[in-house]
């Protein structure tokens, strides 16, 4: 294939995040992981939601897309189904993913497409100046509702294949988790869901608190991420103890959406040349089916 490294295209933007924002670490680790995994920029699609984190696609050299609020997952799935050869990553915040887009998250767990989804969880709405988000604890800004736990949500789907939680304050582990997630999707094994605790320095600075509360499952030898029941129990226990579990929470095998939906005998939708006539026999069959 012709390379065109000399063609000038957009210059990646500088992040719009506040100094000290957890999202810097997420971006840095993501770039490093993609590099390490050998994903070329022209094969990468990074789709982002709305919110502070939903600007990450502007900062990387890749095919970037800025989705509507809450709709990053459907758009990402559409891209993956149309061209499964692409590495397709969705990114966004906890408001985008767990509030306005929660319905799509449920159905993405259910359908298991080979996409990676990074949720930068800062437990508030940073871009609109600090309102409570679906993960905010009771007491934050008069919030009276208990926060949503995406790991417990993910565990409840029999089709879930990859669940992990990282922490921007632990970039080394985050890198391992991202690489594992990319490996998972590149192998077509399904939906890699990665929540990253990414504190908001301006409206809800949880950095110290979260550092004190995180519990690393990856270093707990008694923890078995392939045992759903045990994982659920452990996560609940840790929660009751005031801990936030991080690390590889769960892994499993389940057919991926694209492996079920795509016709393996045919060229993928976006790779077909527009205007070819290779399917004329099916068109003729359609006509025949409607004739007497």
């Amino acid at each position, binding site marked *: 294939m012709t390379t065109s490294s000399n063609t000038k*295209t957009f210059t990646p933007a500088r992040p719009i995040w506040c100094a000290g924002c957890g999202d810097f670490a997420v971006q840095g680790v993501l770039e490093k992981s993609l590099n390490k995994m050998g994903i070329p920029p022209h094969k990468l699609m990074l789709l982002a939601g709305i919110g502070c984190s939903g600007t990450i696609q502007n900062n990387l050299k890749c095919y970037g897309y*800025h989705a509507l609020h809450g709709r990053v997952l*459907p*758009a990402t799935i559409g891209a993956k189904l149309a061209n499964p050869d692409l590495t397709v990553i969705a990114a966004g915040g906890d408001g985008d993913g767990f509030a306005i887009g929660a319905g799509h998250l449920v159905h993405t767990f259910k359908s298991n497409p080979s996409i990676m989804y990074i949720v930068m969880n800062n437990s508030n709405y940073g871009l609109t100046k600090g309102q409570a988000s679906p993960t905010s604890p009771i007491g934050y800004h008069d919030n009276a509702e208990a926060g949503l736990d995406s790991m417990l949500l993910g565990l409840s789907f029999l089709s879930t294949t990859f669940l992990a939680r990282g922490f921007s304050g632990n970039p080394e582990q985050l890198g391992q988790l991202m690489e594992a997630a990319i490996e998972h999707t590149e192998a077509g094994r399904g939906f890699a869901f990665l929540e990253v605790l990414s504190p908001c320095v301006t409206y809800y600075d949880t950095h110290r608190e979260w550092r004190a509360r995180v519990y690393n499952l990856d270093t707990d030898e008694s923890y078995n991420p392939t045992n759903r029941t045990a994982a659920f129990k452990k996560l609940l226990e840790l929660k009751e103890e005031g801990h936030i579990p991080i690390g590889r929470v769960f892994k499993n095998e389940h057919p991926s959406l694209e492996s079920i939906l795509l016709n393996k005998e045919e060229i993928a939708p*976006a790779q077909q040349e527009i205007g070819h006539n290779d399917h004329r026999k*099916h*068109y003729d069959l359609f006509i025949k089916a409607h004739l007497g």
Partner: protein
Amino acid sequence: MTSNNNSQPVLEDVNVIVAGQGGDGSLTVVTMLADLFRNAGLNVYTERDVLSRIRGGHAAATMRAFTGQRYCIGSHIDLLVALDEEAVEKNAHQLNPKSIVVFDDSSGPLRSGLLPEGTRLYAAPFNRIAMRTMRRELYKNSIAFGIVGRLLGLEDDSMRHTFTKRFERRGQIILDYNLEALDLGLHLADEMGIKEGEGIYKIELREPEEHLLIMGNESVAFGFMVAGGRFFTGYPITPSSEVLETLQKWLPRCGGVARQTEDELAGINMAIGAALTGVRTMTATSGPGFSLMQEGIGHAGSGEVPMVLVDCQRSGPSTGMPTKPEQSDLNIMVFGGHGDFPRIVLSPGHPDDCFYLTVDATNLADKYQCPVIIAMDQALSQNIASVKPFKLDEVIVKPGKRLTPEDVAKLDTYKRYGFSEDGISSFAPPGTPGGMSLVTGNEHDEFGLVSTNPTNRVKMMDKRFHKIEVAKKELPKGRHYGDPKAPIGFIGIGMMYGVILEAIEYLKEKGINAQYLQPRTLWPVLDDIYEFVDGCERVYVIDLNAQGQLAHLLMHQGVDSSKIVSICRYDGLPYRPGYLVNQIIELEEKQEAKAQ
């Protein structure tokens, strides 16, 4: 048409309505009749009238078979097949003294006084026979079919053939039961004195011209497929679901994806995500789903994402009357969504037109990188008609401005939203080396980077709208019918197409000379509409909505409003040509009185 049994007129135009409770199988009878008449070389048109439930409630299906060209159900019913008394009560107003009624008298004889004087009645206890002989009420429609078929002059063997075609895919047992029921019906007909070949009509077998039996939704699905569409997502909703179902069956064979999503928001956004990769995409829905999709449509407009949207309109607002036809989404199709963005709205008038306009829509979306909407309505979507096989060899599929890796390599700079003379920017799909770019619904610069620069904003907005100005030259023009010098004009879309065509024939017989323009592009409003209105003294714009949305759209766009007479109908009933003719005669008389 005469119903004189002895002279047996040749069947030229017959309307049959089969009515009962939902689940009685009225639609099955009509579908099989349509197949039989189509096989005999006649043209057919069918219509369904159901409630939004699976069983119960009055349900009816109508079929018209004819030797000429008709694109709607006629004004009078020649044969009513009533599976209960309510079916007679509801449909008696469509009968005339020459009509024939086949009635299921299992629950007792038909109450007197329900039928017009002269109507001939054939009563038999279909339900009771089905229960007694077959232990299943289900087969009553197949029993009735024997009598209906004989009355209409169909041959017994051709009926058996169609039964076999219809039921064999449901297994031998079901087929055998239905054939048994048909034979019971034929036997019953013998007893009633309706022998084979001695029905009310003689069907003159015609040189069998090949005809498809197809509904608008299937034609849309097929048009999309033939135009290279390979990605469809949607959420089931009446009356659009057949687009999804047809594509789920056929697209995977062509390597495409047709997926039922969790809601309409996912439907449109999944289609957008797919479109970003360069595949031709479509989604289909009805009013409620179309409302939900507004944000996505605007996004596709500003992000310049090509996509086709099908709105199979039904009676609104809100949940409205889900199975009833209306054309009340015109405002939202043309003006819906926040902010300003370009779009194209096309409006077919017949299943045949649906195919060719969907090909156009798919090509236009790709070329102009904007949402293209197809305005359907319940009747156009779901009524089955006979059409000539589509001319596949004449379909032209032209890709838009796409860049290959080689094209990109030759460029100094690649800008996804680069300014150009026609407003259309070149597009390198993801996977193209060097074509990395940003797509966003935010206002952006040529590279796709977010920008609020006022100069850029104006240039970008103008660029997007300029595409529509350029597109005008090739957008599908309206179709003109009738005498171009006629003083009276009609404008109507979708399901009104066949009704207006037939009405202008009858009006001519009554001394009113009229012409008809069927607009095929609703937005932008093309010159052909202005010219048509200018050439008439008076133009009746038929709106199937309460506010006169089509008339207002045209007047808002500067069509000579002094000539527009708006007719609005929103009772959920489909027009019949006779109804329109009467309306026009009355209006014309008033007009004359005013002039004197």
